[in-house]
């Protein structure tokens, strides 16, 4: 957990996902897999063995026909800040293979450092961390579509959503080369944000007043997943449906309605 080293103001990249707009189409998942060289196997129906950095969950309201309702909830890595960067996973990694960056607020994962103890997976309540149970195998010829920007992971290591950190690095290189001080909002966007055909995902610096996420996170219907646990996630959700907001966290029976929280 290294402190900010650069002179620019520390950024806190985060996401706001509008669940009213999300159609559950899965384009974000495919874009993410294509961007990040995510492997695939013949049978991916056991979701506990399937690597999907961005997983779209299906929530149901539990009511009977025809009052049943469903809502899709895309779940990237939450890049939890915890208290002062003490995210659930970073502090437990024995080999410093995952780190919380105070420059960007991004929780990184160093695949070549990870030796596969999976403690971080046990620590994460969002199941954003995936273990490579198998060697990644591409059918002959398909390795041609692998992107050189993201290293291919080997068997036996943990991987997860990086907020497309390589895109940040590429964008920052350009910024430095051009001698500018700051990265513009549209210069660094994650693959899922870019792909989302419903424009449900907004990505940006949660600290920056000029970024769309800054305002969206204070939407009265905004909430975060499992806020009560103190994970302090950087992914916000918006839903106009109360039952959806209520499923964002655990509540005791006698606890009242879900109200907007101070951020």
């Amino acid at each position, binding site marked *: 957990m290294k402190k900010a080293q650069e002179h620019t103001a520390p950024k806190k990249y985060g996401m706001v996902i*509008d669940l*009213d*707009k999300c*159609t*559950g*189409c*899965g*384009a974000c*998942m*495919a*874009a993410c*897999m*294509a*961007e990040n*060289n995510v492997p*695939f196997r*013949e*049978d*991916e*129906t*056991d979701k506990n063995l*399937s690597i*999907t950095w961005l997983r*779209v969950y*299906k929530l*149901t309201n*539990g*009511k*009977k*026909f*025809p*009052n*049943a*309702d*469903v*809502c*899709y909830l895309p779940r990237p890595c939450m890049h939890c800040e915890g208290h002062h960067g003490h995210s659930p996973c970073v502090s437990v990694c024995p080999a410093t293979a995952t780190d919380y960056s105070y420059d960007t607020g991004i929780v990184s994962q160093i*695949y070549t450092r990870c030796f596969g103890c999976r403690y971080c997976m046990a620590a994460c309540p969002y199941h954003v961390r995936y273990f490579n149970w198998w*060697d990644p195998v591409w*059918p*002959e*010829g*398909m*390795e*041609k*579509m*692998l*992107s*050189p920007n993201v*290293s*291919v*992971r*080997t*068997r036996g290591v943990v991987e997860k959503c990086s907020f497309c950190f390589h895109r940040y690095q590429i964008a920052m290189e350009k910024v430095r080369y051009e001698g500018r001080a700051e990265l513009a909002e549209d210069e660094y966007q994650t*693959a899922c944000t*870019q*792909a989302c*055909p*419903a*424009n449900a995902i907004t990505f940006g610096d949660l600290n920056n007043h000029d970024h769309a996420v800054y305002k969206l996170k204070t939407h009265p219907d905004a909430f975060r997943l499992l806020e009560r646990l103190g994970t302090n996630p950087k992914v916000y959700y918006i839903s106009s449906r109360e039952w959806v907001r209520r499923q964002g966290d655990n509540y005791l029976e006698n606890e009242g309605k879900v109200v907007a929280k101070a951020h």
Partner: protein
Amino acid sequence: MNIARRSFLAFLIGGAAGTALSPLPWKLTDDLSIWTQTWPWTPVPPDGEYSYVNSVCTLCPGGCGITVRKVDNRAVKIEGMAGHPVNDGGICILGASGLQLLYGPRRVKAPMRRVGERGEGKWETISWDEAIAAAAEKLEGIRSAGNPQGVACMVGDRYGTVPSLFERFMTAYGSPNFMSDAAIEDSYRITLNLMHGKNAIPGFDAGNADFVVSFGSGVIEGWGSPVRMFLAHGKWKDENKTLVQVEPRLSNTAAKADKWVAVQPGTEAVLALSMAYVIIKENLYDKSFVAENAAAFEDWRDDEGKTYPGFKTFVLNGFSPADASKVTGVDPSLIVSLARSFAGAEKPLALCGRGKGNTPGSLHEFMAVHALNGLVGAINRPGGVWAIDVPDYVTWPKPGLDEAARAGLEKPRVDGADGGAYPYTESIISGFADGVNSGSAGYGVEALLVSGANPLYTLRDAQAVRKAFDSIGFVVSFSSYMDETAAQADLILPNHTYLERRQDVPAPFGLNMPVIGMSRPVVPPQFDTRQVGDSLMGIARKMGGSVGDAFGWESYEACLKETMGAAWETLEKDGILVKADYAPEGWGEAFNTPSKKFQFFTGAYRHGENKDLMSQMKIEGEAADFPLILIPYDSMRLASGPVADTPFMAKTIEEDVLIHDDVYVQVNPATAASLNLREGKVAELTTPVGKARVRVHLSEGIGEGVIALPTGLGHWANSKYIAGKGVNVNRLMSPVADPVSGLDAAWGIRAKLARA
């Protein structure tokens, strides 16, 4: 004795200590850990020069602009093209994983001839000259034996140069049996033909509508141009517009809608007419449009003085909310409030065509829904339905016909799309199998050319289709992939994939402006494939005579360039040609019916007085034997057209859809309880045309007595990432010919479910 043993021990201990103190173990440990970081069998993607190529995606009729990221000569990522009029940077799941088709394991890498039994999978690779000669020889043989009509052709899309080349080939060759894949676009085209008097395709100004009633259309499940509809849906949410979904099942669209109206399956048209009842009864319709620009609203009289009931009479005599409620299961008060809200909205819009719109559907239903648009004047105005002229840039002179061709073209069509029964329909691909099997055309089908379609998978009643295929002696596939149809072919002349070829992409379905796109070679051809236009021209030229003469172009590209004329340059540069200032014709000029007005369907039929105007589409099977109704459902995550799911898409199939190789059938808990079935149990699903092993998934999103299966599963050819998983619902369903169009209008089939 002790001396020797002690020296040995000392040697061992000393050796071990020495090794431990040397750098060797540390070096080895380090090397091993480095080795684990880059195992030789784990690929390391080479870096290189980055570039971006704009093109058009043709994996569905959506026509999205794409930007492909390349590293040297490798395409590494497909993204939506920012600023494109259709998708503005967005992309769907299929489009985003398109590279897995390009580089996928099921590419047909060179022309191939079958050597084993059909479907056995034994092929020999042949040269292009051999392949073209083989096709030409066979076709020439059939032709000279006097049976040119015995050659049929199926294409995927209807418009553009490639389908037109096939059509031209069939004409010059002398066969009437040219067919294209059918979808709701065909039903809409006939609807517009009958109600507007125009040869037009529908454009929906969906983004600007403020109250949308969708009669089962999967607005966010791939209906229309999918990404465009997603964007419209997002806009409705932003602007607090209303979406009402009329559908028997809690689809994603229903879940996202502001109101889900759970209707009895197959009764959507009745609900639409009942809404019309309320609108007319309460005088809520657009009076100026109806009075000045519509015909057959009031009772009318033909030239011979015979009186016909108008739309008003028709609707008021039988579609009261109380009556409709009995059929549709929708509460009368809900029908009334829905009708009032619809008519009261500033820009209401009614849509139809179920799910993704892969099945044409009942023409009555289309006309009933379109009548709602007529009642509120949502025609050719912002937020409404626009009639866009069909693409007409292919303006080649007619081919010269020899005697054989003229004789062949006189023969009846195998699929039954002849003037008599179905005067508005060009081809009925769903009627082909029946036509072949029954021999109703009076001649045998000896050869079939398939391009851009996968009929063995996509057509309903797969057994009948398979039977028809088995009886056809010579099947040529032009597929880029070893799909179900290619696997059953005798000869494959593989096309480039859409990322390797140049081809025009006309008019995305549902777009309310005339657009032509151009897909172009993003990467050089990966294998020994050929643009299908060139293959076809090669066959024609090899055959020579008037068939060869019909294709005077040097190459497909020359043909394309000539066809595009002045537009070529723009298309080459931008990849798209947009008529930016396009506006729909005003109500005064919009209609080309005999009355020059919008015709309510009571006046639209020129032949159909005897037909029961509002009979519900009956599906196959009797309730006594098959107590349940099976309906198919579509999902963006399951490609259900000619192209199957990519491995990435297969990863996203939900856990309540597929488990290992078993598909879940959605069943209401009450229905399941009555059948003694529990969650996850294996069951046998039987319909009048087939049976399948399924697993039960209890869902409150579906009503009692109705069960649902996803489309897009049950591939048997294709890659191991999707083949062998689940059931092809088309195998369990049977097409039902619409009485007006003859197109497949089956919205379901009767079924039974029992413990296995």
